[in-house]
């Protein structure tokens, strides 16, 4: 069953642009990305859109559909009424290159600043992990780096000035993953707070809401990391224990 859908797509470059109205054919079983491709093939050959796997695994086609950050390839047209206007805009937190394509290099710069896995003196082949330890970080490894979490996070979405001091949920999750790793020797709690801005997070859970891999970013990564940071920096009993030599303090990871 086909119908003609009303689409409003943001067109422009270097920040300047506008929402342009289109009427496009939609067929049964299609997703928003299919319709954007049809639009490109039939009416707007110069429409820029980034995509790759069409299966929700590459994280390329991040956009905002009716204002919500989503993957275009995973948003079914059947979730909209036939007379509904579907608005598609580029993800708002990052600079736009053209139309729906944004420059997400902020994320790669942040990724480089996270200190790598530190196995201490262990030689390759010596490390062994039990399933229950693997399981914990496996959830975080599902991340496809679509950066919808970093896009929706109001810390940088609404406050561009916080970008230098805040790594965003995706990379705070990476720090949490390493901090929970049984073979990792570094203490990452101080750098999580000082260098990567964990204290900015006010746990409003938007990162979790938009994650297409359904990773419980807030409950399983950010809050556990916050609790660990409390133990390192704000807990008076731990401080006293460390002073009395009861609590062992590990070495902080050097800042990036």
């Amino acid at each position, binding site marked *: 069953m086909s119908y003609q859908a009303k689409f409003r797509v943001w067109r422009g470059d270097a920040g300047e642009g506008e929402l342009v109205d289109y009427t496009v054919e939609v067929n049964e079983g299609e997703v928003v990305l299919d319709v954007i491709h049809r639009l490109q093939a039939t009416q707007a050959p110069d429409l820029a859109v980034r995509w790759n796997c069409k299966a929700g695994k590459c994280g390329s086609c991040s956009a905002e559909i009716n204002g919500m950050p989503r993957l275009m390839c995973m948003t079914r047209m059947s979730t909209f009424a036939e007379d509904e206007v579907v608005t598609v805009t580029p993800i708002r937190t990052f600079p736009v290159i053209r139309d729906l394509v944004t420059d997400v290099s902020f994320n790669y710069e942040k990724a480089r600043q996270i200190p790598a896995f530190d196995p201490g003196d262990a030689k390759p082949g010596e490390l062994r992990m039990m399933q229950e330890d693997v399981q914990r970080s496996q959830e975080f490894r599902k991340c496809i780096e679509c950066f919808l979490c970093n896009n929706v996070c*109001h*810390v940088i979405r609404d406050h561009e000035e916080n970008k230098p001091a805040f790594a965003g949920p995706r990379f705070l999750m990476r720090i949490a993953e390493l901090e929970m790793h049984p073979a990792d020797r570094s203490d990452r709690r101080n750098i999580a707070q000082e260098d990567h801005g964990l204290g900015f997070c006010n746990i409003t859970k*938007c990162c979790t809401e938009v994650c297409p891999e359904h990773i419980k970013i807030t*409950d399983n990564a950010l809050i556990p990391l916050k609790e660990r940071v409390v133990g390192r920096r*704000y807990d008076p009993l731990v401080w006293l224990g460390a002073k009395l030599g009861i609590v062992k303090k590990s070495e902080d990871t050097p800042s990036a």
Partner: protein
Amino acid sequence: MSTVEAPTKKRAQITAKTLRTDNWLNYPIFIVVLFTAWVGYATFRSLMGKYYWVEEYNYLTPFYSPCVSSECVEGSAHFGTFLPELPFFIPLAAVSLPFLLLFRLTCYYYRKAYYRGYWASPPACAVREPHKKYTGERRFPLIGQNLHRYFWAAAVVVSLINTYDALLAFTDADGGFRMGLGSLILLGNVILLWGYTLSCHSCRHIVGGRLKSFSKHPIRYRAWTLVSRLNERHGQYALITLGSLVVADLYVALVSGGVISDPRII
């Protein structure tokens, strides 16, 4: 050879606060209405100073537990009356209510709810917040949110006291077993309060979340798994217990004031 200039790096200039078309305002409005009504009711009741104890059935409302002032009605002070007569603005349960309030105020679920509802930071996901500046929980007073684990410890103690009160509601003046509708309401409230307290994120951290290796601590791993399962519903417990506290308190108040009589089961 000519070069092509890279485009200027600017965000897409979209003036609308949000392009969301769903009812995103529902949640913040629901939270503001619910929390304001609850705080109003709790303040009124905890400062009322009467209708909190039913001597005949040993019912004590959680808003007055433990009752520790010399003003407490005879029989309602299960742990002594070590505080003198208090001014009208201090509740009779002065040793527990401030900690319970701080436990909920610093709770990770409530933080999400009131940051969205009262502070619009942000009002909803992908909706522009109205504030010009944002510093998060890095400075005073919000840095105090990091003391949540201590308020959790206080809440565990108060939950134990509430459990004692609920069990007492199953006894008569001679210590024999009796049961009324009020006993069941107080017991149900305590079970939900334990659900809320044990599903807390700080509890999850203390029980086992702080460990680097689960395999070296199998018992704590098991405990962490159980708390994690409860933790998935922490937000639901947070809201349900607001209701159960009001139901338990209102029931005791109505029975104590003689408005309704307590149906006896045993």
